[in-house]
């Protein structure tokens, strides 16, 4: 269980990263915290020709708050964001969700942007991005662009990032109202069977669900009465196209979406 051979670049500037990506394209992989990628290399699920280590780039290791938007650079580790004193005030949803990301020992290395890049359907950071309606900042050698959360996740481990693009940062808008998060996994730290995030919106509530569909998905609802909410949740539960695996059944997932979804919606609307 050793990785296949690859070249390794320790980038000293973002331009070096972009140059490497534009030259090698799909054969290159950005190495940030490595908590997903390295396991895939060890299992030889991934066999890039080149790894570009971005973790020595200070300019990517920044958390900035501006006009109600928090921008987190590609080098920011999950533990660093969790320890950021402004987190609970600016992004309470992430303060709730981050402790569910892996374990202390993986959050210490893993990055926020790396988790987005990996796009595991059960991961908490993509769910938070969808729930809050954030943006992913992409950059290649020629240009920068921003992609909205709803357009970034294309499928299981598939994103809108082009092969020559680096995820430079991600930005999350601070929500105006309340938020809630809950996750069910087989054990603490496991991939979510169902993870739900609810955020109050000006007109009502947004509920986002991870772990069920191929990508985290969200629905916006106005304030609904009990039976209308149950109908909306039931519809959403079926739209997620849940499936069976060794850890849970599709029915179980739909049930959790209905029950936890209702609890969270009520919680943020109270």
């Amino acid at each position, binding site marked *: 269980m050793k990785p296949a051979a690859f070249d390794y670049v320790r980038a000293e500037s973002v331009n070096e990263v972009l140059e490497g990506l534009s030259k090698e394209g799909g054969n290159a992989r950005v190495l940030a915290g490595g908590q997903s990628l390295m396991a895939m290399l060890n299992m030889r699920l991934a066999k890039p020709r080149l790894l570009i280590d971005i973790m020595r780039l200070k300019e990517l290791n920044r958390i900035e708050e501006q006009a109600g938007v928090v921008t987190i650079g590609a080098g920011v580790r999950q533990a660093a964001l969790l320890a950021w004193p402004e987190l609970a005030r600016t992004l309470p949803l992430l303060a709730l969700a981050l402790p569910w990301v892996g374990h202390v020992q993986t959050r210490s290395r893993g990055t926020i942007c790396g988790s987005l890049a990996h796009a595991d359907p059960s991961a908490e950071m993509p769910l938070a991005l969808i729930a809050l309606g954030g943006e992913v900042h992409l950059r290649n050698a020629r240009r920068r662009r921003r992609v909205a959360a709803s357009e970034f996740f294309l499928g299981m481990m598939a994103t809108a990032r082009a092969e020559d693009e680096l995820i430079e940062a991600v930005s999350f808008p601070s929500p105006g109202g309340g938020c809630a998060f809950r996750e069910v996994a*087989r054990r603490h730290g496991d991939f979510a069977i169902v993870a739900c995030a609810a955020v109050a919106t000006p007109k009502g509530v947004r509920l986002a669900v991870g772990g069920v569909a191929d990508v985290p998905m969200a629905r916006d609802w106005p304030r609904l009465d009990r039976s209308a909410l149950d109908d909306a949740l*039931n519809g959403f539960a079926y739209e997620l196209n849940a499936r069976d695996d060794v850890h849970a059944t599709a029915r179980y997932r739909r049930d959790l979406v209905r029950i936890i979804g209702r609890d969270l919606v009520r919680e943020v609307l109270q």
Partner: protein
Amino acid sequence: MAEAAVQSASSVDQNTAEDRPWVGRSIERVEDAALLTGRGRFIDDLGTPPGTLHAAILRSPHAHADIVSVDAEAARHAPGVAAVLTGEQVKALTSSLVVGVKAPVECWPIAIERVRYVGEPVAVVIASDRARAEDAIELINVEYQPRAAVVDPLAALAADAPVLHDGFPGNLASDRSFSYGNPEQAFAEATHRFSIDIRYPRNSCTPIETYGVIATYDAAENAFDILANFQGPFSIHTVISRALKVPGNRLRLRTPPDSGGSFGVKQGIFPYIVLISAASRAVGRPVKWIEDRLEHLTASVSATNRATTLSVAVTADGKILALDWDQVEDCGAHLRAPEPATLYRMHGNLTGAYDIRHVRVRNRVVVTNKTPTGLNRGFGGPQVYFALERLVQRIAIGLRLDPLDVIKRNLVPADAFPYRTATGALLDSGNYQEAIARAVEHGQLAELRTRRDEARAQGRLYGIGFTAVVEPSVSNMGYITTVLTAAERRKAGPKNGAQATATVALDPVGGVTVHVASVPQGQGHRTVLSQVVADVFGLKPQDVRVNTEIDTAKDAWSIASGNYASRFAAAVAGTAKLAAERIAARLARVAASQLNVESADIVFAGGFVASKHNLENRVAFSRVAALCHWSPGSLPDDAGQTIRETVFWTPPELTPPDDQDRINSSLCHGFIFDFCGVEIDRTTFETRIDRYVTMHDCGTILHPGMVDGQIRGGFTQALGAALCEEYAYAADGSFLTGTLADYLLPTTTEVPEPQIIHMETPSPFTPLGAKGVGEGNCMSTPVCIANAVADALGLADVTLPLVPAKLADLVRGPEPEPPTGQSRAALTREGDRRLRGEGSASVNGAPEQVWTMLLDPQTLQAVIPGCEQVHKVSDTHFRADVTLGIGPVSGRYRADVQLFDLDPPHAVTLRGKAEGALGFGHAEGRITLEPDDRGGTRLRYSYDAAIGGKVASIGGRLLDGATRVIIGQFFAALARHAGGGAPASGFSMFALLSKLASLFGGRR
């Protein structure tokens, strides 16, 4: 939830009173200082001989297939590669491993012509380092012809089941029936009869250190020197030497000083010892192999899964008159030694803790397309007690009795020991009634019942479970011969006993060294032996040095040597005591002559040998101990040497099976009574252990801290078996739990502290009065939790593991209907693990154009990313190499696609397969083309795919989603190309099938 007090965790015994024996005290472990500072010496920490090469193993992605061809040419020429061995070459260097029953069936450590389980070795690469060996593995092309697979033990018995081995009738390796007492009459006359069907799942105790072997073949002497973290039993030494075609004295098997856990599992390393030794012989160099975690989960070894029907004849007040066992044991793809031992280890104990005189048994052993089974903590106990103790609960419910009353009504009477069970076990000692009474009191059962009542009154799901079990230890090496008929046994010669060995030696300055062949894997044997021997010589434990490494070329050992069947405390520690006492007796004679007293007046205490009547009349122990080295002539004539004594001890109670098939399968029998309270979450259906009480009577306790450590460890593994752990297989034999993110071990957040209660009824059959204790909770806890969950949810049947979704399915009512216009499931995976789906796309160009494009291999290479070397076998048959990926995951595949039922330009059926390092896929699809109203084509497709191999084992969670991504990408590309107006070139049937057939997923 698991924050239950940890206060009861035992600490070191601080009492240093000189006159108390060391045995019975929780002294600090001598093992710990090295382990806590990173100076342990596990197999992968030890140096290797110069020139050592490293092995990697290519494993089967198929559960059942013929090997059509193995092309290893490219691998043989890869950098650093010394050799590639296939089954044929290994076969030439070895002979078949012993099969556990008499049948014309072979068992090799590598697949010969056919693979029978996912993960079975197919080729071994020997290279300069592990990474290069793995590089070369990927260059080997194996062509398989898949066969139908069977994974269910009862399905394996069906007349039309796929057959694994021609030498067994069907898949039935053994079928024996037994009758003890008069069960027919008891069943006929009983007022009540109950029956239960059990499917006990597969799991394994999965040590954190994996297998390791370093093998060196010495051509000059035709001998092997092997270092392996093998745990015994050393009866397997004979199996290995036979397979390697050398006499036993040319097979030197050594173990490293430390081993990172085993729990039975490291018995299963022996086929790899043979394989790596053969590799060393082939390359003429030492070869090292360290198993990786994926290999371990997929293909090391597993406990057996078992299908059991157990029936009982019972009186109205709950007295059990007779049992009728029908057990179908699933040993996986090969019946490796010592299987079917899992089935027979409990044969003397099929009546558990109960006084039941009439027993009927039918034992069948089947082979299926799963990893072969072997030793695992509990070894047969979990399977038996799950059936027996679930049935006791069912009797209670059926007769409206309290389950605890049914248990108590049937216990072996306290005055009946030693008690011979109907099936032959001799229960050595105990007082089960007293043990239960103490547990009920100290464990506060009454309070727990109140808790349950209160919880239920609040609408919560709360239940209580009970279990009483007898924990056998020190296996009779002859119990496995119960699988033979009496006549067959007479022909084969008797097998019985359990030789334990210990050597005590005194050095020229009076230092004491102990050596045993117990092969500890973390249990602290060295510490306990230092206590036992220190007591005999009146020394401190730190004065006694213990060596537990084994070297079969130099050390005393026998077939029963090793670490299994909880034999250390009962057998090995006692044998060390006997060896020390023999030397002490001689030293007493030496000292008596020096001190001018009788030998009987000699006492060993405080580092001196003294007269009991005058403790001042004494001589230093070291002086007496050294005398035999420096001045043997000074010893009294009758003293003999006092330098070294090796004792072999085997209990006379362990006799062979008698002609009525009664077998005393184990020497000692501890008693366990457990009860627990559990609560099930109404939303998630997670099971939370509210309280767990476990009463143990394991005879004399040698080291309380270690005994509690064994109980907690066993309890935790059992908790895993009850709640999380299963080696899951799909119906097609795909292995689904190939990582530690899929095979779920309990962690700190799931494990509560059990309340441990002790009672000590010494065994009359062992030198120290001790019995085994390490396996009991693996037998009692899974069923105790299951009984509690059944009680909480009002279920008649529960199956392990108690996966929340499974419990939810059992108790939830019908699901709310989907809103109108929405289907229940668009994409489903059926029980056969085939993935079915359908879709459609709009493509520019008339159907004729699209049709041409579909069948044009010319454009393939250009339009499919990573597509190389398209080879057109015929107009309707293509082969190609493709590299496919999703996210960072990518793999190279050899694809083969054929077209059928061509109906140009309307429809075509495709059938294809692809194989690569990440796995394989088979798919069949039907595509139809219809003109749309804009001059384009409406393309509809339906598919049916099966995916297996490594991707199913380690990426199952993501597999279906990955499929959708690839299909989506594919049609997006098609639409893009067609929309571009150029001759449509972005699509082909071939690409679709290749992609469908080449799916994979990743983790984390």
